């Protein structure tokens, strides 16, 4: 997930929120992409607006989809993300989301269940004590944010590929979709879900996953950008349709592989 954003220089955040309230009910995706396609600097230099049209908007979208396919080809299921010694762990590991830390979901562990859906034989929901009993794997890997910063963290949990096999998921399905407590969501490709380092994460640095890092469960995917690592996960569906995701739907590249 992207870290909480500071307002751009020279922009009054209060005014922005006011404006945002007016703008939000409108279908945001289309408006956004029109904005994305504008060649601001060139238009400013030439005083013309010819490039800010649907052609460039569509072209950018087509190229981003093409880049998804290229990245799926580049993705090697046997290439492991580099692992680091404990001394390299970033401390404190940053909290990052599109909201502040005190607004993060406060999940009730006793009521929480992992909902399982879609192309799966056994859709029985999972409680935390049940998940804690499963075989644990561990990794110290680099979390890379789309913004450019990165941090090294230590995560423990269940190998997602083992879990998918155990619940009888259709491993030939195309996608796995995750829903989160705060409404965040992500769809990932099945080859990434089956990657040996993709983890159903229950602990950070050998302690129960703290609220800041996604309690009770996050999905750790060291082969993808940070925003493709959902936290506060409540549901997992195996399916053949791409259900998109929070940032993906706002124009960020869908595959976002590392």
């Amino acid at each position, binding site marked *: 997930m992207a870290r909480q954003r500071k307002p751009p220089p020279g922009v009054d955040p209060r005014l922005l929120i006011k404006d945002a309230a007016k703008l939000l009910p409108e279908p945001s995706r289309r408006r956004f992409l029109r*904005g994305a*396609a504008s060649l601001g600097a060139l238009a400013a230099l030439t005083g013309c607006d010819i490039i800010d049209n649907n052609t460039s908007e569509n072209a950018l979208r087509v190229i981003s989809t093409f880049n998804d396919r290229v990245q799926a080809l580049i993705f090697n299921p046997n290439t492991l993300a*580099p692992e680091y010694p404990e001394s390299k762990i970033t401390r404190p590991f940053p909290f990052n989301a599109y909201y502040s830390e005190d607004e993060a979901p406060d999940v009730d562990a006793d009521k929480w269940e992992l909902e399982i859906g879609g192309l799966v034989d056994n859709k029985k929901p999972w409680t935390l004590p049940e998940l804690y009993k499963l075989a644990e794997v561990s990794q110290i890997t680099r979390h890379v944010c789309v913004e450019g910063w*990165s941090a090294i963290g230590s995560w423990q949990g269940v190998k997602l590929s083992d879990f998918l096999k155990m619940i009888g998921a259709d491993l030939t399905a195309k996608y796995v979709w995750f829903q989160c407590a705060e409404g965040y969501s992500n769809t990932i490709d099945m080859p990434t879900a089956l990657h040996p380092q993709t983890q159903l994460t229950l602990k950070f640095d050998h302690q129960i996953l703290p609220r800041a890092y996604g309690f009770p469960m996050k999905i750790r995917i060291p*082969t993808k950008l940070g925003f493709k690592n959902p936290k506060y996960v409540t549901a997992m569906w195996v399916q053949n349709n791409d259900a998109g995701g929070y940032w993906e739907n706002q124009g960020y590249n869908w595959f976002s592989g*590392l």
Partner: protein
Amino acid sequence: MTASSTTAVPRIRVTPLIPRLCHWVNALAIFIMVGSGWRIYNSEPIVPGLIPYFNHRYTLGGDFELSFKLHGEPGLAGATLWHFAGMWLLVINFLVYVAYGLVSGRFRRKLLPLSATGVIADARAALTGRLSHADLSIYNNVQKLLYAGIIVVGVVVVLSGLSIWKPVQFHYLTSFFGGYDTARYVHFGAMAAIVAFLVVHVALAVLVPKSLRAMIIDR
């Protein structure tokens, strides 16, 4: 039979069509990559003491205030869309240019021999206003150094970019650049070298306008 006295002076080709086209496609690609790269820089400045942020007016990636209003992000998504589209234009065009330069012998003819003494002599001549621009088809030693150097910088900017785009799949490349964090500085430094080259390059083209004309119409 004698040669006609009206035969025109043989026209000297300054820049053949392929490198000339590559030059202008590259100009567009650099514009896209630097513009969107500056916007990406703004989300996480790596040399905040030197450059806190690039004025968004000179960055590429859509209306950043609208992006911020709609989803609380100052146009980073748009910038990355441009950056990862522009990279294809930059790389494919660069490969065509380099392949042509190597196969045709143009690099060898134009860029070699290159010597330190020659560069110093030509730099001194240029600064005292005595450098000849009579034959645009022959590069002086300073040009040779800059044009050869910027090709190397081009390779560095692409490979360092690749190493921060795919630090898992191409982790050997990322390690070669000293790891993820260092590779970002290398990528930034290569961008800075390109922009510095561009400033000198455009200034000199303006000072010697016939070179600009030659790059457009080859005469």
